[in-house]
């Protein structure tokens, strides 16, 4: 593969970087990243990965665009309300960068469909908004040995961590199982600062690019937390735990299972 004249210009600011160069850009163009969730986190991740020239971007979300999404889900525009999220995001990606091949998965992530999707990709971005989906992605990536970036947000606080399954701490090393049902309010009820997922989703895209290129130090074995109100970033060390029910030596989770519905369960909820 060699870069076209147009690609040399489009990606010139990447190529000029010593850690990327022409070889790195070609690597990005032949890479495949899956974004699970096309909401607040998935929006900036999709836009930046498309602009960077990640050659194949998979979009997985079974939802449609709602008016309440637009305050933070910047890949969707006002005219997209009512459209499928994957279709809405696909059109923006194509508009930014026609080099990108978009694979649309217009489904909710479930134990019986996620592994076969994930194994087609080099890296996964967990941009979901609920715990059952986060555990499902963590477990599926572990079983398929695909690296991923966990991201989560609520109100003014966000967090992220990169997981290289079998090598570094997984999500369950930190959080073994679902929190009790009423301890965490969904975003629709708790609120979220619109720009917050912009920060965390952009950091997740950064981790994806670094991992694809094999440059820098990945955010593994530590959880980065961010508070928008105080502007504190904290990197909390979080190594692998021998009691981890998934990746520890005495693992109790040996097959992929759903821990609940990954879409909101409350009737009429638009979170």
């Amino acid at each position, binding site marked *: 593969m060699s870069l076209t004249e147009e690609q*040399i210009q489009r990606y010139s600011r990447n*190529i*000029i970087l010593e850690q990327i160069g022409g070889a790195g850009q070609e690597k990005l163009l032949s890479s495949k990243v899956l974004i699970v969730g096309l909401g607040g986190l998935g929006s900036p991740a999709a836009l930046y990965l498309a602009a960077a020239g990640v050659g194949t971007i998979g979009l997985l979300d079974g939802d449609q665009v709602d008016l309440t999404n637009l305050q933070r889900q910047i890949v969707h525009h006002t005219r997209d309300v009512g459209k499928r999220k994957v279709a809405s995001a696909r059109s923006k990606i194509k508009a930014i960068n026609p080099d990108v091949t978009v694979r649309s998965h217009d489904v909710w992530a479930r134990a019986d469909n996620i592994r076969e999707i994930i194994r087609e990709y080099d890296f996964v971005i967990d941009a979901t908004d609920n715990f059952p989906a986060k555990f499902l992605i963590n477990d599926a990536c572990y079983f398929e040995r695909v690296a991923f970036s966990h991201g989560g947000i609520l109100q003014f606080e966000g967090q992220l961590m990169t997981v290289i399954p079998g090598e570094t701490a997984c999500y369950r090393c930190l959080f073994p199982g679902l929190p009790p049902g009423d301890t965490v309010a969904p975003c629709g009820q708790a609120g979220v600062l619109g720009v917050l997922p912009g920060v965390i989703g952009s950091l997740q895209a950064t981790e994806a690019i670094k991992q694809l290129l094999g440059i820098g130090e990945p955010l593994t074995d530590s959880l980065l937390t961010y508070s928008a109100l105080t502007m504190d970033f904290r990197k909390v060390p979080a190594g692998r735990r021998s009691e981890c029910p998934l990746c520890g030596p005495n693992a109790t989770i040996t097959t992929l299972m759903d821990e609940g519905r990954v879409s909101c369960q409350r009737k009429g909820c638009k979170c």
Partner: protein
Amino acid sequence: MLTTKVDLRGVPCPLNLVKAKLALEKVAVGDILEIEIDDGEPIRNLPVSLGRQGQEILETVEQQGYFCLRIRRRL
């Protein structure tokens, strides 16, 4: 030792740096790349930028109306 030549006359800054980098990636470390560049901005910027990125500028030879830059790939 191999010497490769690339003509970057007429290519403005900073695109000439991008193209010089791409050409350097194609020569082996230790080998030499000769780049033809324009007078003015290119000859002021390119040697400095490539030097800053760790490449070795061997010589700059003025030709008629342009320059020939000899660089050894170090990285």
